[in-house]
Each structure stands twice: as C-alpha cells, then as structure tokens.
C-alpha cells in the first residue's frame, strides 16, 4: 500500500465523525489563536518596552568607561566618542549611535531644590528612534543644537520646583575632576513621559553646555548609546564591539545597564511560556480524546484490517497520519482564526488608556508602558507556536496509534 493510499484512507477516516473533527479543529484553532495573541502581545510590548528603555537610557548597547558602571561619576568619561560612534555604525545591525553625558544633578529655584538625573544630548545626532522625549514635550521647545541656552525639565519636577517657562533654574553637578560646579539656565521646556518617577526627576541639557560646565573636551561623553535595528541582537552586537574595541572600553547591553528591566521581562516571558504550555496541554488533551475515541470505536475494524494483511506499522502510521492531517488542518484553522484579530491589533491596537487611568500608569524602573496595546510576533516565535501546535497534535495521536497497532484481531473481530 502506498503512502498516498494510506493518506487517503486517513483523510476519509477523519471525516467519518465530521462534527467531532470540526470541534477538534475549533479547539486547535482557538488554542493557536490564544497562543499567537498572547505571544504577539508579549513580543510587541516587551520589544517596545525595551526600545523605550533604550531610548530613555543609554541605547541597546552602551559604550562607556569600564569603571562607569560601578562608579557612575563624570570622572569616568569616554574620550574620542566620535571614533567609537564611527566604529559602532560600521556594524550593519546598528541603526544609530549617539554620544551622551548623563549623571546626577541638583536643580534649584528660589523656592525649592530637588535631585535629578540629567541627560546631555546632541540634537543633531538624535533621531525619533533614539530620543524618547521628542514626542513628550508638553510646553516650550526641545533643543535643536548641541550648544544652546536653556534647560528642559520633567513636567512634575518643574511643578515641584514651582518653575514656569523662562524662570531661572540653578543646577549643580560634579565636574570631570569631581569638584562641584554650578550653572544657571532659564527653563525652556517641559516633558511628560508618562512615567511619574521619571517626570519628577528628569533634566535635559544640550551636550555642549554640559561639556563646558563639567570641563569635558569636545568629543568626550560618559556614554555612546548604540541603537539597533532589532534590540534582540544586543548580545551579539555587544560581543562584536567588545572584540573590536578591546578592554579599554566598557561594552554593556541594555539589560546589563538596567538589570531590573531584564528581571521583569524574564519573569513576564517565563509566565507567558507557562501559559503557552498550559494551552498546548489543553489542546493536546482535546485532540488525544478525539483520536483515542476514534481508535476505540474502530477496534473491530482494525482487527479486520490486521486479518486481511495490514501490518501493525501500517495501522500505527494510519492513525499518526490522521493526527498529522488534523495538525495541518488545525494550523490553517488557527491562522484563519487569528489573521483578522492579529491584523487589527497590529495596526489599530487596543486603547487601554481608560484602564491605565483608573489604576495609574504602568511603569517599570522609570519606563512607562504604552497604553495602546499592539501585537507583533517575532517570526521565530510564530514558527515555535506552529511547531508546538502541530507537535502536540501529532504526539496526542501516538498512544492511540500504538493501541491501534496492538489490536488483537480475534478479540477485536468478536466485538459487537
């Protein structure tokens, strides 16, 4: 008997109980839909979250002084940051590299003082893909040149200081040798990121203003923030840069710099995996039930088939083929069921602003989640879901198939 004939027989067997097969396909499709939706939500939201963290922080990969991570002080500067930027940009996986100076700062007005985090940036190097705050401006203007007068504060910080646009802001920081220096600028803008802790402690300055204040040379920075086309390549790009730049430069990935975000993402991804395994097990249990019932109902028929010359292996293969066909049909059903919701969720998304407003903004380590939930599955995860779905379906058929092959013809034929 050729494989094609066995496939034909398996196909017909599958449709003997049309309603049961259709119900099984619905359960596979629904399981696939849930897995795709969950994974796609997770993939997109964490990718966006990591990208946001990278934009707010120091890139997917950070080049800095080897000592800076343990002692984040302006003493530990990176000289020749333009050369480092050029080296990083040679890697085709790198989208952009920008020099930044960041550190602690004390900002004061006549009425109050607060500690804050400052970022000195070069507006001519930054793009919307690297600079998170471009869309967050609520008042005034952002900088357009590396040397420009003014200071931009987080909206909450400005409010806490009682500062309005045009008011003088005195700021104090340590310089390149660790001495305290002071400067004054007028408030030229406020930003609101949606992350309350950041909005209460953010201070933006033009990079050249900072350099002059702390005594840095023209191409000195505390970091070169490297942004990747795909944030998942951060480990690979970091390894390549480490090999290229040697031990004189500290090369860190976003999760080295922000380990609390790594832990949060890992925990959520782990939880997602557990849910996916539960879904796979539920789907497999449904499929197992269908195929096992179908085999038990055909015990007599299998006895006859053995009597007329089918081998155990052929009966085993027959049932496995039934499972495999169910798996393929299930996969297509899952794709069909998931296609429109996926398209809608990837383009329009689901606006959770109202829910966020009720429960407060979702913020992890100073990074806010986008209140518009969107989906975007990583291709490799889509392949994994397809393989798990098909694998679970085929595996669910193994025991029934084994039972089919072990039928004792005399006992089976005498069944009424």
């Amino acid at each position, binding site marked *: *008997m*050729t494989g094609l*004939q066995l496939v034909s*027989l398996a196909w*017909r*067997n599958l449709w*003997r109980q049309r309603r049961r097969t259709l119900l099984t396909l619905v359960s596979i499709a629904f399981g696939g839909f849930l897995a795709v939706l969950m994974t796609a939500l997770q993939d997109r939201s964490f990718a966006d979250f990591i990208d946001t963290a990278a934009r707010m922080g120091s890139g997917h990969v950070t080049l800095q002084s080897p000592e800076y991570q343990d002692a984040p002080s302006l003493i530990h500067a990176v000289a020749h940051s333009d050369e480092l930027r050029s080296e990083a940009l040679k890697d085709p996986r790198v989208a952009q590299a920008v020099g930044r100076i960041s550190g602690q700062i004390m900002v004061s007005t006549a009425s109050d003082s607060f500690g804050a985090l400052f970022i000195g940036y070069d507006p001519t190097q930054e793009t919307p893909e690297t600079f998170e705050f471009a869309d967050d401006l609520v008042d005034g203007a952002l900088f357009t040149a590396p040397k420009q007068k003014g200071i931009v504060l987080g909206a909450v910080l400005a409010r806490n200081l009682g500062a309005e646009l045009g008011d003088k802001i005195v700021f104090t920081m340590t310089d390149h040798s660790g001495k305290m220096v002071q400067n004054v600028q007028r408030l030229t803008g406020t930003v609101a990121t949606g992350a309350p802790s950041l909005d209460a402690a953010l201070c933006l300055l033009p990079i050249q203003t900072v350099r002059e204040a702390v005594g840095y040379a023209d191409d000195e920075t505390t970091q070169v923030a490297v942004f990747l086309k795909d944030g998942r390549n951060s480990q690979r790009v970091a390894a390549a840069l480490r090999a290229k730049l040697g031990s004189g430069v500290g090369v860190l990935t976003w999760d080295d710099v922000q380990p609390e975000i790594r832990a949060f993402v890992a925990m959520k991804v782990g939880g997602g995996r557990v849910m996916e395994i539960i879904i796979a097990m539920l789907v497999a249990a449904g499929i197992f039930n269908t195929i096992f019932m179908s085999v038990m109902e055909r015990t*007599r*028929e299998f006895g*006859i*088939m*053995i*009597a*007329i*010359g*089918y*081998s*155990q292996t*052929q009966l085993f293969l027959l049932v496995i083929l039934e499972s495999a066909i169910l798996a393929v049909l299930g996969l297509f059903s899952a794709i069909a069921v998931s296609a429109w919701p996926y398209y809608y969720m990837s383009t329009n998304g689901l606006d959770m602003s109202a829910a966020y407003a009720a429960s407060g903004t979702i913020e992890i380590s100073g990074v806010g989640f986008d209140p518009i939930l969107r989906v975007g599955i990583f291709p490799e995860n889509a392949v994994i879901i397809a393989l798990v779905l098909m694998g679970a379906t085929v595996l669910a058929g193994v025991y029934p198939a084994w039972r089919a092959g072990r039928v004792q*013809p*005399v006992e089976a*034929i005498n069944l009424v």
Partner: protein
Amino acid sequence: MPQPSGTPVFQFENVTKIYRKGAMETHALRGMNLTVHSGEFVAIWGPSGSGKTTALNLGGALDTPTSGTIRLEGVDLATLSRKALSRLRRDRIGFVFQAYNLIPVLTAFENAEAVLALQGVAASERRDRVMQLLKDVGLAGMEHRRPNELSGGQQQRVAIARAIASNPAVILADEPTANVDSETAEKLLTIMARLNEERGITFVFSTHDPRVMKYARRLVGMVDGAIATDEVKASGE
C-alpha cells in the same frame, strides 16, 4: 478418516486451545487433527461452542494454539514472526466474515482492491483484476458504492471478492451466510462453489447452515472441541 486428493494446504496436528478467564478454563479445541487439501470445499459444522470458529481463527493465524502444530502450505505458523504472519495473512489467506466487515470509508472497488494494494500490485493490474472479480461476484456497476450503499448480500460479495483478490491458498469463511436471506445465501454459495470449481480455490467454512453443507463436498463435524465426523461426499451427492 477420508483422504481427499491434492496438496495439503493446512494441517492441524493435535491442536488444543484453552481460553482462560481468571480461574476458569474453557477448552475450545481438544487435540484437533485435520488436513485440508488444495481445491477442497470443506464445511466445518457443529453446534455453537463446538470449536469451529476457533479452528478457523487458528488456521487463519489470527490466534495461537495452546499446544499442537498448525501448518499452512507446510510452514509451521508458530515459527513465524508477527511481520511474517501479517504477510502470510495478506498473501495466502482470504477471510470472509459473518458480519461482512468491510472498511466503511472505502468503496466496493477499494475494499476489494485493498489486499492487492498492500501487496504492491501495480494500479493498472489491480484495476483489471478487481473489476473482473466484482463482475464475477455480480457487482459490475457498483464499484463506487460504499458499504452503506450496498445490501448485506452485496457487501458479502465484496468481502468474497476481497478474499479471493490476492489468489490465496485458502479462503476461510466464518458463517458467511448467517446474516443474509435464503435467496442471497444461495447466490453467495453458488458464487463460491463456482470459484472453487473454476479456479480451484480452497474454501473452508465454519457453519451450521444446512445450505452450506449442501454445497460442501467435505463435512467435518465438531462436538466439544473435537472432530466427531469427517465425511467426503461422493461425487454428484
């Protein structure tokens, strides 16, 4: 015991079969000795529980004896692996069951063709042989019907066509007329008798249908798991 002419097709040598269920033992066969020769048309008859179906199951390699030896065309079945037994059933034995037992999702043609497909016979040859067989059993024009579209008698004819399709050494028929009306039973027996006459196919029936015994040329009577009578009819009887 009579000694019909022809080569021995299968031989039972002191065969016993005991079914055990818990502490209870049922002796289905008690030292059965029987030789069936090629071309014979044998009816094993007897009351229910006499062991005739057990004998057919053992002869068809569907079950194994508790003791004794069964040979098919000289080969001791006990020496064969499961795979070899599977091949043996496919190539050398044809079965006709009481309840037709066709594969419901296959058409009449495909049911009759199944064994040939298992043997790897080429499609064109399969088609020619099966179409001729279906014509021989009176089912020309019904090739594409599924079992549920055929009457009981028609289904049994398909089963006969399936059984003889592979040119087996012997066809074992377990109460083949039990589920059909008298007229259909006569037709089925006529077909099988003709196939026996024209093609020399060996038939062994288990039955207590007098019509089968009328057609049979050798009657083996069983009582309580043992052969009580073995009678070869005189020609023309």
